[in-house]
C-alpha cells in the first residue's frame, strides 16, 4: 500500500479527539471518513492497466518509415472504476462555486448554469470539425454571428473579433489592431500608458506587441490621475490601456474625457473589459470613446472557469480599428453565412492583421455564452449588473467599520469592494492569515494583494448570483474573524486547520522545483 507512505501519514496536529476520553486517534489509512487521501496516478496505475476496450488491430505491415516507438513511454493505466474514483476523490479536495460563495475580485465567479453545459454538448455544435465544408456548418456560423450581434449591441461597438481564446489573447488582438492601424498610416509612435492598478496582462500584452509601457499613477480616489494622464499624452503615445470599472472596483468617470484627449493626440483607447459585469446592460463602452475592449465570456457571460480555463475573449472594435480585425470571421452573404479565411481575406479584408489562432475561436464557450445571454435577455442582463453592484456595496457597507476601506468615502463601489489590511496593523497578522481563516469558515477567500495600489489588498467580488443570506453569512464570518484576530492574534497564525492540507510551503516549491513525477524507486 505504497500510496499511504507517499501521501504521508496524518500528523498529530490533524487529529480529532475521541469522544469523552480525550484520547487522540490516528487513522490507519490516513483518511478521515469522507476526506480521502488519493495517491498520484503514477503511484497507483499499472503499465498494463487500461479502462478502454478496442477492436483488434488489423494485421497489416506498418508504414511508420522505421520510426516506430519502442521504448516504454511510462504512462500508468487505470481500469474505469479506479479512474472514476481517482478523479472523484481528487475533485472533493477542491472548493468551487457549486459549493459556496467564491468572491475572487476581478474574476467574476458567478453561477455556471447547467443549461449551458447541455447546449454546448449538442452534437450539432460539439461534433463538427473546423475544416468541414462551410455548407455543412451553417448552423455553427449562425451561432457565431448571433453572438457577435449581441456583443456589438451590448457594447455599442460596430465590430467584434471572435477568435481570441481568453482575455489576455483579446488584449493581444486589440493591441495588434492598434499597432496595425498605426503602421497603416506609417505612424511610429510606440508608448502605451497603463495605470499602475492595471492587471498584469495589460503591460505584458503591450510589450508583446513591441510597445514600451509607461505607468500612470492613481489618484487618492483610486482612479486614474487625469492630470498626469493628460500631461503625458503626445505624439509618441500610441495608446492608453484603461480598465473600467477599474481593478479597485471603481468606475472611471473621466474615461470619456481621457478618450477624447487621446484621440485628439492621435492615439487609441484600449479598455480592459474584464469588469464588464458591473455595467452590462446599463452602460455601453462604445459611448465612452473606447476603440477596443475584450470581453471575458468566462466572467461576464458565465462560462465555467474549469480550474484555470478555457476562457474566451472576443474583442469589440471601433470603426477606426475594425478593418484590421483578424481572420477568420463570419460575414453574411446572399447565399448564406461565409467564414472569411485566407482564400477570400485578400479581397474582403485586405487590412486584416491576419490569423491569431489556428481555427475560429472558442466555439464551446460561444454556445454557453449565447445560451446565457438568451436566458437573461436585455432586461435580465441589466438586472445582472444592478444586483452585482448592489451585492458589492452591501458587503462594503456591512464591513467598512472594521475593515479598512481606502476609497469608501469617495462614494459607492461598482461590482467589487476593496479593503486594505491596515486594520491589522500591530497584530502581526496579514491579509494572508485572514484569507486562510476564511477557508476554515467554509468560504473561498477574496483576491489577495491585488491591485497593488493598496496595502495587503482584499478585493471582494460577490457577483449577482449570491443571495442575501449567503452574503450575511460571509459578512458574519468576516466580522467574527477580524474581531477575533484583533482580540487574540496568536490563535490566528496557522489557519487553515480543517482543509485537506494545512498551509503549503510555496517557497520550498520554487526553490527546489519538482514539476514532474519521478519514480523514487526507479
Amino acid at each position, binding site marked *: 500500500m505504497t500510496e499511504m507512505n507517499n501521501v504521508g501519514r496524518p500528523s498529530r496536529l490533524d487529529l480529532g479527539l475521541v469522544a469523552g476520553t480525550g484520547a487522540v486517534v490516528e487513522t490507519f489509512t490516513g483518511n478521515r471518513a469522507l476526506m480521502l487521501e488519493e495517491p498520484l496516478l503514477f503511484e497507483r496505475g499499472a503499465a498494463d492497466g487500461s479502462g478502454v476496450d478496442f477492436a483488434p488491430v488489423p494485421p497489416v505491415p506498418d508504414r511508420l518509415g522505421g520510426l516506430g516507438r519502442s521504448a516504454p513511454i511510462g504512462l500508468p493505466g487505470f481500469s474505469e472504476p479506479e479512474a472514476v474514483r481517482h478523479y472523484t476523490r481528487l475533485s472533493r479536495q477542491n472548493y468551487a462555486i457549486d459549493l459556496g460563495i467564491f468572491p475572487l475580485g476581478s474574476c467574476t465567479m458567478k453561477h455556471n448554469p447547467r443549461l449551458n453545459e447541455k447546449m454546448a454538448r449538442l452534437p450539432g455544435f460539439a*461534433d463538427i470539425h473546423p475544416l468541414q465544408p462551410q455548407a455543412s456548418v451553417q448552423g455553427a456560423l449562425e451561432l457565431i454571428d448571433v453572438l457577435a450581434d449581441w456583443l456589438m449591441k451590448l457594447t455599442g461597438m460596430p465590430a467584434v473579433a471572435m477568435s481570441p481564446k481568453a482575455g489576455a489573447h483579446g488584449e493581444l488582438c486589440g493591441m495588434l489592431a492598434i499597432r496595425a492601424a498605426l503602421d497603416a498610416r506609417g505612424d511610429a509612435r510606440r508608448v502605451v500608458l497603463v495605470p499602475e492598478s492595471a492587471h498584469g496582462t495589460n503591460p505584458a500584452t503591450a510589450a508583446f506587441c513591441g510597445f514600451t509601457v509607461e505607468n500612470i499613477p492613481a489618484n487618492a480616489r483610486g482612479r486614474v490621475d487625469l492630470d498626469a494622464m493628460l500631461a503625458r499624452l503626445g505624439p509618441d503615445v500610441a495608446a492608453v490601456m484603461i480598465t473600467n470599472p477599474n481593478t479597485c472596483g471603481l468606475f472611471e468617470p473621466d474615461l470619456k474625457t481621457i478618450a477624447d484627449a487621446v484621440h485628439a493626440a492621435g492615439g487609441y483607447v484600449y479598455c480592459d473589459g474584464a469588469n464588464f459585469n458591473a455595467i452590462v446592460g446599463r452602460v455601453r463602452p462604445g459611448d465612452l470613446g473606447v476603440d477596443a475592449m475584450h470581453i471575458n465570456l468566462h466572467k461576464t457571460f458565465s462560462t465555467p472557469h474549469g480550474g484555470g480555463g478555457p476562457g474566451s475573449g472576443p474583442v469589440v472594435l471601433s470603426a477606426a480599428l475594425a478593418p484590421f480585425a483578424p481572420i477568420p470571421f463570419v460575414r453574411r452573404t446572399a447565399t448564406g453565412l461565409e467564414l472569411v479565411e485566407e482564400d477570400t481575406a485578400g479581397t474582403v479584408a485586405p487590412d486584416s492583421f491576419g490569423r491569431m489562432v489556428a481555427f475560429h475561436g472558442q466555439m464551446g464557450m460561444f454556445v454557453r455564452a449565447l445560451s446565457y445571454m438568451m436566458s437573461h435577455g436585455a432586461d435580465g442582463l441589466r438586472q445582472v449588473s444592478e444586483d452585482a453592484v448592489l451585492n458589492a456595496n452591501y458587503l462594503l457597507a456591512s464591513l467598512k467599520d472594521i475593515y479598512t476601506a481606502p476609497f469608501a468615502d469617495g462614494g459607492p463601489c461598482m461590482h467589487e469592494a476593496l479593503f486594505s489590511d491596515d486594520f491589522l496593523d500591530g497584530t502581526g497578522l496579514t491579509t494572508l492569515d485572514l484569507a486562510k481563516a476564511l477557508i476554515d469558515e467554509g468560504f473561498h477567500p477574496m483576491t489577495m494583494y491585488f491591485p497593488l495600489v493598496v496595502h495587503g489588498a482584499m478585493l471582494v467580488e460577490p457577483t449577482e448570483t449570491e443571495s442575501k443570506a449567503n452574503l450575511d453569512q460571509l459578512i458574519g464570518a468576516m466580522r467574527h474573524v477580524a474581531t477575533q484576530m484583533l482580540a487574540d492574534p496568536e490563535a490566528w497564525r496557522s489557519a*487553515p486547520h480543517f482543509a485537506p492540507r494545512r498551509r503549503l510551503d510555496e517557497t520550498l516549491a520554487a526553490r527546489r522545483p519538482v514539476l514532474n513525477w519521478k519514480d523514487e524507486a526507479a
Partner: protein
Amino acid sequence: MRYLPLSPTDRQAMLATIGAADIDALFSDVPLDARLDGPIAGLPNHASEMAVERALMKMAAKNTTASTAPFFVGCGAYKHHVPATVDMVIQRGEFLTAYTPYQPEIAQGTLQVLFEFQSQVARLTGMEVANASMYDGSTAMTEAVFMARRITRRAKCLVSAGVHPHYTSVLNTLTRFTGDVVVAGTPSLAVGAPGDDLASLIAGIDKDTSCVIVQNPNLFGHIADLTPLADACHAAGALLIVVVTEVVSLGAVKSPGEMGADIVVGEGQSLGAGLLFGGPYLGLFACREKHVRQMPGRLCGETVDAAGKRGFVLTLSTREQHIRREKATSNICTNSGLIALAFSVHLTLLGEKGLRHLAALNHARAVQLADRLGRVPGVTLLNGSFFNEFTLDLGREARPVVRKLADKGVLGGVSLGRLWPGEASLHNAMIVAVTETATDEDFDAFEDALDEVLAK
C-alpha cells in the same frame, strides 16, 4: 429570472443598509449621458430554459456532425472516441466551477491533476518538463519561438513547409511587431515524402538562427527522422522545436524527445476534447529542465504543508505576467485547465497499453484506406510513411471534389486549396485522416463516392 437570487424585498433591505435611495444612486459615477435608461434596444428579453434550448437546437440541427457521416477530416483536429467517463469527470462541479488554484489548501484536486497532466505530457513528448497548458497548438508554437529567442538571444526562426499553414500564419501575425524573423517555405509534394524539407532546413541554419520548427508527422502525414536536424541545430547553437498536432501518434511514433527536440509543442485535442468546431482545444508545451525558467504559462509543483504532508502549488510564477508584468515570459493568464483535465482522464483510462493499441489501430486502418483509395483511378498516394493521415493527388483541383463528396454525404478530407489558396501547385491534393471511429462501411462509402466524383 432563474439565475438571480435577490428578491425585491432583499434589494430594498440592502439599499437601506447601504443608505442609497435607489439602485441608480450606486451608478452615480457614470456620466449622465452614458447611462441607459432601459434595456438595450434590439435584443430580446429573458427566456425560459425550454425556449433557449429550442432555439439553439434549431441552429445545431443545421450542421452535419462527424458521427452521422463517413468522416475523414483531420489537419490539426481529429475525431476520436472519448470515453463517457471523461465527460462525467469534467462535469463534476468541483472541477468545472473552480477558479485557477490560487488557494492551494482548497484546490488540491485541480493541482494534483495538473501535476499529473504535466508528468503525462513530459513522458508522452519525451521531454523533462511540461507546463499546465496553453490555449492551443498554434499559440503554443508561437510562444516556443519567443522562448527560443529569450534563450538563444537570436531572432531568426526557420519554419518547415510541413508545418500546418494556420500555425505558421499565427506565428507570422504575432511576430509582426516583435523583431523576430520568420523564414517559412512552401511545401513541395514530392511522392514518397510530401512536405519534407529537412535537408534545406539544415542547409539554412546559421549563427543567427534561434530555432527551427518542424511538425511530425507533418501536415501531409509524412513522418521523418528528426535526429540529423536536431544535431545540426545543436551544432549551430539553435533550438529544435517540434510540433505535434496528433498526439495519438505518440503512441506509435518515436517521440520528439527521442529525436533530440529541445521544445515540443502540440495540440492535445485528440484526447478528451472532441472536435468542438475548433475550440476550446489544448496547447501542450514541454521542454528540457534547464530551460524551465524561460517557459511560458503556469507550472504546478510539489511541496509539503505545515503538517509535513505532500501537497501541490502553482510555482515559479516570477515568470508570469501577474508578477513580472511587461517583463513576463508570456501574457497568458487563463489557459485550458479543464481540457487538460479531460486529456489527462482520457490518457489515464487508456494507459500505456491502451494508447499503444489506439495508435496501432489508427495506423492500421489508415494503411488499409490509403491502399484502397490509392487504387481509385486518377488518384495517387503521395506518402511513403504516415501515421493516421495521408495525402492524395487527385489529378484535378481537390476543393470542388471535397464539396462534391460532401454533397454525397461523405466528409472526405481537406483540400490544400483551402489551406494555401495562393499555391496553385498544391491545389490537386487532399489530406485524408483515418481514426478508430471509421468503419468498413465508411471506407466503402468514401471509395465509391470518390470514384463517382472523379469519374465525372
